């Protein structure tokens, strides 16, 4: 999808578009996403939907919902890339991997997505602290 088409879509639907400025690891071309609640009115989960490929979407959640002690250190690269000046400007999202049963759902705590709340630019960071796992059970 070209940038012109994305801008037209934004004006039509008035849905905020998150710009993943460097693409996602494994999906480097996926740069424009919408975020909508997924799973019902009281669901904490959202669908991170690619506008560049309508078949690509991720199940995401704010990590504080399941991991209240999770306080990843966002490195200088991400801070600089997004122009973050205060930590409250950052919205964190973690990507969930579903399994055969809902109890098998895991969260990627090694690679959170950091979104600048005002500019809506985002990066998926790779935490330097490798004690975090890409598959942490949420249940």
């Amino acid at each position, binding site marked *: 999808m070209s940038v012109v088409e994305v801008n037209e879509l934004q004006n039509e639907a008035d849905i905020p578009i998150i710009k993943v400025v*460097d693409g*996602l*690891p*494994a*999906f480097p071309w996926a740069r424009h996403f919408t975020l909508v609640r*997924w*799973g*019902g009115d*009281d*669901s*904490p*989960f959202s*669908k991170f939907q690619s506008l560049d490929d309508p*078949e*690509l*979407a*991720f*199940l995401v959640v704010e990590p504080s919902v399941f991991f209240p002690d999770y306080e990843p250190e966002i490195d*200088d*690269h*991400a*801070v*600089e*890339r997004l122009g973050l000046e205060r930590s409250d400007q950052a919205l964190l999202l973690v*990507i*969930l*991997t*579903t399994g055969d*049963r*809902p*109890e098998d*759902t895991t969260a*990627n705590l*090694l*690679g959170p997505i950091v979104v600048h709340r005002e500019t809506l630019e985002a*990066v*998926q960071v*790779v*935490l*330097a602290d*490798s004690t975090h796992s*890409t*598959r942490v059970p949420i*249940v």
Partner: protein
Amino acid sequence: MLVLTRSANQSIMIGHDIVLTILEVRGDQVRIGINAPREVGIYREELFAAIQQANRSAASPSDESVRSLSALRRDKDPQPEQD
């Protein structure tokens, strides 16, 4: 892949702004210093690869699996009665 051989205290430039310096060679470990603009991401390759793999596994879950997950959560943490 470009292959170069360096000794301790020698460096490699990538582009005009990134400098890799071999700080120390000890046994089978090499300490590498990297000078790069702050907006350039620097990652241990195996961690970046882990993120790629996790993204691939996570891509495009079904609506059904999300509904099951919501239902599980609702059953575990029922919302309090509204007054």
